[in-house]
């Protein structure tokens, strides 16, 4: 994983910085090269950083409840700028209020995210999935098949 770069940041006008520091430290320890954009990161900043660092994944955090509004068109913009294959993860307190996991997953799968994590989910599992997803991504990139069925939701 040493050579695998991932982009980390808190999207939108969100100022919750504590979880971001924790995630940075955690993923770095797990061997990822973490480029941490901190809080209040725009879609453009995420994408530019991903291109610049040839990143395998973008890990979006959103704690303050505006994730849905902030993420509209994110996947499309990635594609526009040539990041067809990039893994999009999102985690945090993703909506305003406390709806069911299913409803939240539906919303963010529609928005093009590959995996969705909610408050209280285990980070260890998340890191493992990330690693596995990246491996698979790499293999499929070297194969000729296109990648569609890869997207999955954490259950």
């Amino acid at each position, binding site marked *: 994983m040493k050579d695998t770069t991932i982009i980390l940041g808190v999207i939108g*006008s969100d100022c919750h910085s504590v979880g971001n*520091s924790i995630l940075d430290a955690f993923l770095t320890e797990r061997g990822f090269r973490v480029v941490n954009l901190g809080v209040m990161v725009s879609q453009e900043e995420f994408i530019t950083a991903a291109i610049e660092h040839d990143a395998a994944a973008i890990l979006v955090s959103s704690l303050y409840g*505006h994730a849905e509004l902030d993420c509209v068109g994110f996947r499309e913009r990635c594609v526009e700028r040539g990041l067809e294959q990039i893994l999009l993860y999102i985690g945090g307190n993703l909506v305003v209020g406390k709806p069911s996991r299913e409803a939240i997953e539906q919303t963010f799968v529609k928005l093009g995210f590959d995996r969705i994590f909610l*408050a209280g989910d285990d980070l260890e599992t998340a890191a493992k999935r990330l690693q596995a997803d990246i491996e698979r991504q790499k293999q499929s990139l070297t194969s000729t098949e296109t990648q569609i069925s890869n997207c999955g939701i954490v259950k």
Partner: protein
Amino acid sequence: MKTKKNSLDDFNKIRRQVLQSWPTGADVHLDEAIAYQQAIPDSKRFAKAMAEAKARNTLLTQPRAGVALVEEHIRLLKYLETEGGADLLPTTIDAYTRQNRYREAAKGIEKSTASGVSMLNGFPAVNHGVEQCRRVTESLSRPVQVRHGTPDARLLAEITLAGGFTSFEGGGISYNIPYVKNVPLRKTLTDWQYVDRLCGYYEEHGVAINREPFGPLTGTLVPPCISHAVGIIEGFLALEQGVKSLSLGHGQGGNLVQDVAAVMSLKSLADRFFREAGFADFELTTVFHQWMGGFPVDESRAFGVIGWGTVVACLAGADKIIVKTPHEAMGVPTKEANAQGLKATKQIINMFGEQRNLDIAAVEREKSVIEREVNCILKKVIELGRGDIKEGTIAAFEAGVLDVAFAPSTQCRGKILPMRDNEGYIRLYNHAGIPLDDDLVAYHRERLEQRAKHEKRNICFQMITDDIYAISKGQLVGRPR
């Protein structure tokens, strides 16, 4: 110490620009607004309620709450007032408005109207404007405060005060450091002088507006000496502009003795400081925030956290408590969950009844530690500003004399390393630029060494991580697994 009240001319010059920054600003007419405020009955005046709580030695409850649409917002606050029995009401502002992104807030209102659920994490008061704010405040029978996190809250203050709110939270430090990434402290301090001058102007016209600096900062391992220093500074800056009703806050740290000592010392320190600065005509009250860090997801455990904070606030003799909910870890609470938090809190406050204020030897010890620490810092701030406290504050943050850990802002160094000692007191492992006397530094260090020894590990960053997770895992001190 110099005090400097902004001139009315300067104020009015800026004012025009402020009101033009979004269309709803045009509806604010200060004279009419003052007349409107003057007609608000005492029972709905925040300042009055706080003063009475202090006089009667009781603890008032206040939730957090705000949704995108006016009707729903009114329904929400009414529910908290009746079913929840809240003594004081909030209007929590959404995160776009906090960033002055009124266009995005407008989109959020639209989407909310369309989908029927609030897509904003608060009430976009600027977009709704004066008249709608008045509809809100008029629909309620308890005092209502604006709670937000807005670095530039000038237009928000204009609209909400004209809209009948009688208290306004925030300050140039506490609504900058924990809330934004890159807004110069000088700008926020100046913008908040405007807000304070506006409140002072109301006050001069017989309308008391309560002002409350945001005590908890990042809500995460904040040593009391730091948040106290910030609170006292912001309080001082408010008094300078003519504010008279001031509430200073403390976010629960988790150690009972330290929390009690913190509230007690906050009161005495601020009072002495303001008096020595020449202010006499002010009403100082205290606010206790139930645990401001990460909450446990499990609702029963969340109730445990809520209960524990309430007991401490009672023992500490605070005047107001900011109440959390069993949904805290998950998302903006439903009105039912919000009322649940209020009811659990109220039950304890009521059971406590008269038995307030804890007085034990350790409290005295910690009180004097905190008092000495705050004095060290403030002396330096004043020195750096050569008597001008605003200048001193700016310089102090630059120099790391004032510092906050885990803050997103580039305006502070983030070099200090706070962690819990073996009894759960928050101490400084690295005090970085904070100018503490040597024996105080040694005291912190010694207490932390005790923990390290107890845990059979060296003092390390992992401890801080462990501490941050601890409460949501049902502990205070983050012990090694």
